[in-house]
């Protein structure tokens, strides 16, 4: 009985509830604002107001994570109209200090393995380019960006 209790306690101690200690949160959308037909509009990842932002929270400090974006190629607007989106090799950034002014750039089109801060935090910033056509229909367009984070 004592052995069982000891072992059970050890199991519980060694197998903590991981899910409760890691999280990724979408903090801010990527906002292109007003766009004119035929005029591409770029939002840099360093734009504090309009770049997309995700905050990461991991267990412990100095842990690596694996970041993978699912990026839309189009935004959808009125009457089914679509507007192309493009993401370049410099359009994402990771910040251990969670500051838009202090990022390490990476390509959002490929997986990326940064290291969280000593307190298990980090932020991911994302820019991009909207490419409206000359005949782009007026109205509001939206899309969804997904960031998948694997915490090791």
């Amino acid at each position: 009985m004592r052995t069982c209790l000891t072992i059970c306690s050890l199991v519980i101690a060694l197998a903590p509830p991981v899910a409760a200690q890691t999280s990724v949160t979408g903090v801010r959308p990527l906002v292109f604002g007003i766009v004119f037909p035929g005029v591409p509009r770029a939002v840099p990842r360093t734009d504090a107001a309009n770049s997309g932002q995700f905050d990461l929270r991991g267990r412990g400090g100095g842990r690596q994570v694996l970041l993978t974006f699912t990026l839309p190629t189009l935004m959808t607007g009125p009457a089914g109209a679509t507007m192309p989106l493009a993401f370049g090799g410099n359009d994402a950034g990771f910040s251990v200090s969670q500051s838009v002014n202090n990022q390490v750039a990476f390509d959002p089109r490929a997986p990326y393995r940064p290291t969280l801060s000593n307190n298990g935090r980090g932020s991911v910033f994302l820019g991009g380019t909207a490419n409206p056509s000359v005949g782009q229909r007026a109205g509001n367009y939206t899309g969804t960006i997904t960031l998948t984070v694997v915490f090791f």
Partner: protein
Amino acid sequence: MHTATKVTVLALALVAAGAVTGQAQNNATVNVTAAVQQPVVVVKTRDLDFGLVFPGVNKQITLGSASAGTFAVTGQASASVNLSFVVPGNLNLGPTLLPVTWDGSWNTANAAGGTTFTPSAALTPATLSGTGGLFVFVGGTVAPIVSQAPGNYTGTVTMTVTYQ
């Protein structure tokens, strides 16, 4: 197997299983948004240039001249617009006057041979092309007298483009 050993093996298995589930995967989404607005714009694409002006010699810039002023109007395809102008009858150097008259035309192609009009405050109707374009050409004639005083004669031309 001894009971303690069984429990140990079970515990180790649970620990091993827990080590696998310690690699957590989360995901989150944010929206990406844009608002497309159809603009209207009037851009000067070429200056109206009178070039050399000789006292006593009228100088005309025709609408088809490479020196005629040209404006490009862009807006909604096939939209109806109005053009109106405020143009001076004289250019001024202080109290000294240099008479000037004006000519205009508009076209959906970038060629002066379109619909002619006299730039004035009266509304001139025009229609943008099927791709939302319109070109406005402005020419004129200055009439310096023989004793026209040298100097920099100035004037202001105001063009208004009105949309429905």
